[in-house]
């Protein structure tokens, strides 16, 4: 925990300009081969993007995920300390669990493992109509299918008429259309709401 605190305080001071600036070249070689050694590969036309993967997590060996893509492809995805993980909110890499769905972007290593830079777990983007609002959840009609959205205090935000997001959900109205970014609860028709975009 102290390392997180140290890290954060170092970054905070840097962002506010309280630390000195150095030229990057002072830190070592800037030879092009070093710079591009782990660079991203470029996709061939008509071929899947090598730096992207999606699917369901079917296995996890420490921080190496086995993922079954929806197109049947199998991916191996390596999570590291520098991978950003979104699961309803930015979180830590241990939150990617077996059974979760994910999208991952990163760098494809020569051994076929995707070194993930950013991972979004269970993320969904739904266009819905609000059919009911209750303390236990907001019911959505998603093109004829019922979806239950759960509000997570401190995380769920609402954007009304395109204005900046607020935590106040009391302007949600039954019958309105909405777009919802949320985290799916695997195996259910329920999601946790990250942001709901609607009108008031």
């Amino acid at each position, binding site marked *: 925990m102290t390392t997180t605190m140290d*890290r*954060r305080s*170092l*970054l*905070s001071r*840097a*962002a*506010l*300009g309280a*630390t*000195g*600036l*150095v030229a*990057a*070249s002072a*830190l*070592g070689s*800037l030879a*092009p081969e*070093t*710079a*591009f*050694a782990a660079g991203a590969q470029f996709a061939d036309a008509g071929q899947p993007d090598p730096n992207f993967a999606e699917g369901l997590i079917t296995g996890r060996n420490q921080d190496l995920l086995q993922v079954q893509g929806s197109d049947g492809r199998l991916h191996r995805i390596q999570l590291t300390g*520098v*991978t*950003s993980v*979104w699961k309803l*909110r*930015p979180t830590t890499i241990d939150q990617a669990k077996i059974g979760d769905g994910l999208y991952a972007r990163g760098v494809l290593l020569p051994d076929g493992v995707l070194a993930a*830079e*950013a991972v*979004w777990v269970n993320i969904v983007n739904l266009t819905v109509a609000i*059919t009911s*609002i*209750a*303390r236990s959840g907001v019911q959505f*009609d998603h*093109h*004829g*299918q019922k979806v239950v959205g759960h*509000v997570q*205090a*401190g*995380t*769920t*935000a609402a*954007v009304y008429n395109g204005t*900046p*997001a*607020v*935590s*106040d*959900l*009391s302007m*949600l*109205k*039954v*019958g309105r259309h909405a777009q919802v970014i949320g985290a799916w609860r695997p195996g259910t028709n329920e999601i946790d709401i*990250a*942001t709901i975009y609607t009108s008031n």
Partner: protein
Amino acid sequence: MGTEQVAAAQPLLIGVLLLWSSYGKFKNPQQADRTALPRLVGDSRAKSAYLAVAALEALIALGLLAPPFTAIEAVAAAALGLGFTGFLIYSKIVVPEASCGCAGKSAKPVGYRAIARALLLLATAVLATTATGGWWSAGLALVVLVAEAAVFVMLSAELDRYWLLPIRRFRTRLSHPYAGTASSTPPLAATQRRVLLSPAYRAVDGMLRSDIHDYWDDEDWRYLSYIARYDGRRATAVFAVPHQDSTPESVRVAVVDETSGLTLYRPTVLATA
């Protein structure tokens, strides 16, 4: 008012219902593709089958509504009700995502309400077969139809927006379940949007490799960190967003090498374009 009159009154309700559902089918024949019909009779015949059902409904409805009274019309309606029930149960089991297509536009898959409505139609039609006179001879028994019609409305998902949603809207207006959710701490989504719209973000956008990696609050600032790549090496881009000042220029950024703790890049004068 005996069972006799109640039975005699049924054709009026059944007739009106069938006319409504027939009208819905004629108005939106393309709805046929969403039902289980393509699976049952083939893609090419689904639309004609759908329209044929609509025509049959209209025919039986007019027979029931118009004099003279004959028992055969009620029997036909009962047969139709039985057919609907069977078709809906088939849909639910074989093509669960199919909509009912009962009375026009609805994307809702067949649910228990639709099946209950078909069963109720079947029951009223069976009751009508026992009648000995037309609905115009039912007298006061017509009042019973009001209650029956209300049940039909409640079982019709197509009509929810005319009564169910207004009731729910009214209830949330009286007391909103999320009335207490407002807070003074801005949600992360708001901070992220401020970052995305800031000149600081434009200055380092090309270096960012990850989504938000970490975020924290400290006194008057909220910090967001991203993993970045600077001159070919791993770095961390950290944004500082003030709580008080909401101008885009107030967002600051630095690119830091975390292993050495040194700041690699910090745009000083940010364009305000």
